[in-house]
């Protein structure tokens, strides 16, 4: 593995002929937390989808732990939590069932959980503070609780790479803190985490590396070197430069519409 967990080379992605991500290249070290930062429409979700093989790049290659994504998925090694879950919230499954779905890749053909699977699911639910609500039907959770449930499913999957697309959107400060603490634990256990977020203030507290993106990768590397005012102002088209970085939270809501990409 030579220490590189995610290797992206010259990846270009287009939707219906319109380029959303232009020759992105990126190497991420294993066992680190990497923040993905960029404004609305910058191509963050697109990068995640390309990594998961959900959109096919026009060109370029993506390797995870040295293997193409299809091979890695077969062994459940990449856990992905999308920006918004495209599921039927009235579906007759409980919170517990949903988290158990993270374990399917490790089970036999009939997907019969072993005691190990049950233990891991219980631990994951306890870690996000949802064990009490495990028997609820999945739609009977609040928005933030739903996010935590799907986060727990990714924990239960115990991959080596964790891809999180805006896990903090719509969760309260306490939950965000809880999730960040969990991410730090996972990093200690050797997982590689790529996380997109609009909470610039917290990036320096837990991200080892940062990737700045605006239709293409502008810069990436150690947080201390890359997360500078100058780079950020390039990423956000000058918008951040006027803000005292450490204090202000930049959320989707606080961004004026004319700052968005078409």
């Amino acid at each position, binding site marked *: 593995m030579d220490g590189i967990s995610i290797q992206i080379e010259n990846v270009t992605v287009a939707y219906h002929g319109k380029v959303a991500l232009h020759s992105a290249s990126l190497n991420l070290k294993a066992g680190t937390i990497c923040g993905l930062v960029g404004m609305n429409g910058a191509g963050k979700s697109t990068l995640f989808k390309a990594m*998961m*093989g*959900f959109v096919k790049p026009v060109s370029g290659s993506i390797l995870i732990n040295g293997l193409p994504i*299809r091979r890695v*998925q*077969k*062994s*459940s090694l*990449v*856990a*992905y939590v*999308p920006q918004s*879950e*495209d*599921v*039927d919230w009235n*579906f*007759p*499954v*409980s919170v517990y*069932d949903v988290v158990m*779905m*993270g374990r*399917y*890749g490790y089970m036999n*053909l*009939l*997907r019969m959980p072993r005691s190990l699977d049950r233990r891991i699911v219980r631990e994951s639910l306890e870690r996000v503070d949802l064990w009490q609500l495990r028997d609820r*039907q999945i739609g009977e959770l609040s928005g933030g609780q739903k996010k935590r449930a799907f986060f727990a*499913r990714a924990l239960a*999957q115990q991959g080596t790479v964790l891809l999180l697309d805006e896990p903090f959107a719509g969760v309260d400060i306490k939950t965000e803190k809880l999730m960040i603490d969990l991410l730090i634990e996972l990093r200690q256990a050797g997982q590689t985490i790529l996380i997109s977020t609009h909470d610039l203030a917290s990036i320096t507290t837990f991200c080892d590396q940062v990737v700045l993106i605006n239709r293409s990768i502008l810069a990436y590397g150690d947080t201390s070197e890359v997360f500078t005012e100058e780079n950020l102002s390039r990423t956000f088209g000058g918008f951040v430069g006027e803000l005292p970085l450490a204090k202000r939270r930049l959320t989707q809501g606080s961004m004026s519409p004319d700052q968005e990409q078409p």
Partner: protein
Amino acid sequence: MDLVQWFVAPLQHEFMLKAILVSALVGIVCSALSCYTILKGWALMGDAVSHAVMPGVVIAYVLNIPLAVGAFVFGVGSVMAIGFIKAKTRVKEDTVIGLVFTGFFALGLVLVSKVRSSIDLTHILFGNVLGISDADIVQTVIISGITLVTLAILRKDLILFCFDSTHARSIGLNITFLYYVLLSLLSLTAVAGLQTVGIILVVAMLVTPGATAFLLSDRFDQMMLIAMVTGVFSSVIGTYISYHIDGSTGGCIVVLQTLLFVMAMIFAPKHGLLVRARTSQALNKTVV
């Protein structure tokens, strides 16, 4: 006692015994599949497939091959046609579905009218379980076996596919495979259902028990069980009733299923209309 007679007397006829066993089996299989159909939102698709098998059935009659084979080819073929037209044109999906299945069905009608002597159109359209042949029974048993075994093995994969196909893909499940499995089962059970209630009412067998159970439970396994129980109940009792009143068997079965749905809709403990009305009343009181 009269009631005992009501149940026992018809069984003296061999055809009734066969009819009841077959419709019970079909009830189980269709109900099991109906849970997936309604959760995936494939009711319209089920209707389309069941109508589209018509030409296949007629061709199979003429070529003297098993009905299921012909039906299967046209069932899956119709879905592929729907997918193809949707992808290549700007017409919306429900339009395409409506267009394709009526086209296939119409083709079937033309074929039937040209080979009228050997096939009874009303049997295809409305079912004929009271006069079912031994060959058709064998075929129904085989179809049921295949469907139930497949559902038993792939139960959880199919649940995940219906609930969250993104996650299914991300842990390496082959969702194209699951899509076609579910679709093939839909075509197969449409053939099985066709024997008892006929092409026109098959979609009820593939939708109603699942919908009833969905109102009564928030757990998939429970939902499946409830669907199967209501399905078998309606099939068996419906067949009895049709014998006693000398009316359409398919009609009786589907009317019973619909009644069960209406009862669930009103009385369901959590999602029923009565409970909803009561809770909103209680809430209003506390607010005032």
